[in-house]
């Protein structure tokens, strides 16, 4: 099955019904799929910390949220993760495109890639790294884990996972 559909099916199967997104070329397919599904309310946000605020509110309103974003936004959301999502103990699956890894064409992306796992580790955010396409099989279990423990959980998805960037 196509990865975008598989990820979206897992979101729906786990009753994730409120998804906010900040775009990324790698995530374009999954964002399009999320947008198409009637079971999911899709609300694009302008910045990732804003998106986490939306997710916090949606969760308190009884919906399971998720955020789809780039790893550069870890730099934007540290305070929000610490003082909102973690402090109030809220679940938040973060599906993250891991830019700046192998096959990356844009050098500047590497500058946040080298900090991504260190920052997530410093924040005690459980982190999973999808490198092979078969890694997507764990997504369902990761969602269950997230809503079991009420924590933000990061799923880093690199270029190899998405099948590269096409012709460069």
């Amino acid at each position, binding site marked *: 099955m196509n990865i975008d559909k598989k990820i979206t099916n897992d979101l729906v199967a786990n009753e994730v019904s409120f998804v906010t997104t900040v775009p990324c070329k790698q995530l374009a397919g999954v964002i399009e799929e999320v947008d198409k599904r009637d079971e999911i309310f899709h609300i694009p946000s*302008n910045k990732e910390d804003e998106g986490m*605020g*939306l997710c916090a509110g949606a969760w*308190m309103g*009884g919906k399971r949220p998720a955020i789809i974003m780039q790893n550069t936004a870890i730099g934007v959301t540290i305070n929000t993760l610490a003082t909102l999502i973690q402090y*109030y103990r809220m679940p938040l699956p973060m599906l993250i495109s891991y830019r700046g890894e192998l096959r990356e064409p844009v050098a500047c992306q590497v500058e946040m890639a080298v900090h991504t796992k260190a920052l997530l580790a410093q924040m005690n955010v459980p982190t999973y790294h999808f490198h092979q396409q078969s890694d997507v099989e764990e997504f369902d279990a990761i969602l269950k884990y997230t809503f079991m423990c009420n924590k933000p959980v990061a799923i880093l998805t690199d270029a190899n996972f998405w099948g590269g960037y096409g012709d460069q």
Partner: protein
Amino acid sequence: MIRSEILKEIAPILRDQLVVCNIGIPSQELHAIDDQPSNFYMLGTMGLASSIGLGLALAQPKTVISIDGDGSVLTNLGTLPTIGNNMPPNYILMIIDNGSYGSTGDQPTYTGKKTDLAAMARAAGCDDVVEVQDVDTGKALQAAIDSGKGTVMVVKCDSGNAKMPVITMDPVVIRDRFMKAVAS
């Protein structure tokens, strides 16, 4: 009027609604004036009251009032287009605009100078935007609730803070009792 005087006056209206209250002194004031399980106090994360309130209003049908400040909206300006393009009928964003960063010592914000938040909200796509003076807040808030339309209120008032104690309630307690109030 300063913010705490407005909050005292509108407390009887807020009591029956879900309220998301901005970080710092606004939450301390509301907590001291009329603590309710239906109040969600932000203890950190400046700027996100409007986003949390929007997410909450989109997720369930009860009326949600976010009490925000001019400084906090300025730090999260992307919130206005998101609200403007997704405004649910049960959401009221009330921006207490006193032209200053109250919690940090009343340093001036740009809304006390040339910046017009009501005009920015309209330009961002918010259809129902009202600008009111402090003394008219209660009337305007009740009208917004009764209208059943998503509304952005910009309440112009004086700069200043009441001396209130810091909130010591555990964040998970605040969140848990708030969620029970949402679900009740």
